[in-house]
């Protein structure tokens, strides 16, 4: 195909925001129902699980885009750069490196999270409800693993949103890029709050 690398890079950047970014925010907001009680959480989770065409939605909106984004992302993180933050310690260079580190954390977390929830439910070992997550998050190791991962994921999303605006030529001038930085920092704090609040809520016990 003509311009294959160009096309892949564009697709990588697009998929990170639509659908993956939207999915992540949606997922965290649904989970946040736990703040209104166990009942609310179970109701919301069951609603999501009972959406029509749920398998097709999962495959095309979640699994395939994440797989593509992850494979090209790992290549970009390991094969391309010579990290040089020591010599060039500028803010954006740190964001560049952190974007790659948080990407790898996200990948490890997703693999584990899917295994611990989706796969176990499919195997019939556990049931998808409040207790599944409460049991996991009441173990100190997993509590911190989830906290760190959620922060990493939200960072990757927010900073990725910034890169998206540059890669698609939306923010060009330094001032435009600065304003997008402020907006994405806001996104980082708001979405992180939603995620962390949810995790803590699960450990409060019902």
């Amino acid at each position, binding site marked *: 195909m003509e*311009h*294959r*690398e*160009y096309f892949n*890079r*564009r697709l990588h*950047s697009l998929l990170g925001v639509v659908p993956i970014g939207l999915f992540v925010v949606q997922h965290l907001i649904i989970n946040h129902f736990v703040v209104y009680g166990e009942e609310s959480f179970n109701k919301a989770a069951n609603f999501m699980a009972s959406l029509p065409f749920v398998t097709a939605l999962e495959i095309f909106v979640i699994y395939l885009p994440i797989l593509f984004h992850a494979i090209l992302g790992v290549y*970009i993180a390991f*094969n*391309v*750069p*010579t*990290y*040089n933050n*020591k*010599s*060039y310690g*500028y803010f*954006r*260079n740190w*964001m*560049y*490196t952190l974007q790659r580190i948080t990407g790898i954390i996200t990948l490890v977390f997703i693999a584990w999270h899917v295994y611990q929830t989706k796969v176990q439910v499919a195997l019939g070992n556990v049931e998808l409800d409040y207790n599944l997550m409460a049991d996991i998050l009441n173990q100190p190791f997993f509590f911190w693993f989830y906290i760190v991962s959620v922060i990493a994921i939200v960072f990757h999303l927010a900073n990725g949103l*910034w*890169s998206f605006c*540059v*890669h*698609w*030529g*939306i*923010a*060009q*001038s*330094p001032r435009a*890029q600065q304003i997008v930085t402020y907006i994405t920092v806001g996104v980082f704090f708001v979405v992180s709050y939603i995620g962390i609040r949810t995790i803590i809520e699960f450990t409060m016990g019902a």
Partner: protein
Amino acid sequence: MAEQKTVTFIITRQDGPDSAPYEETFHIPYRPNMNVISALMEIQKNPVNANGEKTSAVQWDMNCLEEVCGACSMVINGTARQSCAALVDQLDQPVRLAPMDTFPVVRDLIIDRERMFDALKQIKGWVPIDGTHDLGPGPRMPEKKRQWAYELSKCMTCGVCLEACPNVNDKSTFIGPAAISQARLFNSHPTGEMNKSERLEGLMEEGGVLGCGNAQNCVEVCPKGIPLTTSIASMNRATLVQSFKNFFGSDNAH
């Protein structure tokens, strides 16, 4: 007479393109207002290292000696910059010199910038006007735009921005910020604009504009203050429009 003050230089040297790099230390007699080049000239006059051994003179590149040719660029105390504009009084000591090893090293501090010229070929960084007959004068450029374009035209292909860029190295085909900005310069020239899509195609080829990972070191280190990151974002948009035209077709010639 007071003892002669000296400055210590630790230089990363390499005897040839394929030999292993090594470090050599020199104590150089201090003179007020000396720059890195005049220090290297001292070594050339008296190539004796810190152990008092006679050694070969350190090789480097230079031309203009006033920060307009870019030939003398090297890594000074960890940062790529022009050695002719690096005043010893303003540097931390000992001063460390190394070649910009993003590029193939020819010898000592001399590097081969060929990939930058290949990049300019990829994006067709020129205005094609050669032909069999006189085409007459081209369209005029508004003065405001000329001033703006002048800033972009200051690039001296020094390679400092490529050296600072984490995405430019021998594993990657990324052409680097300088050539992307040159595509923008020629695409905004009234005559150059006539071949706009050819340059955008070049930017969409392998190693093109999307190879940028937004680390933005380039714009921090460019000695000419060229707005490289704005150029990159602007070419991101222009190639996007071009790819839509390519895919869907356009009723304008493209």
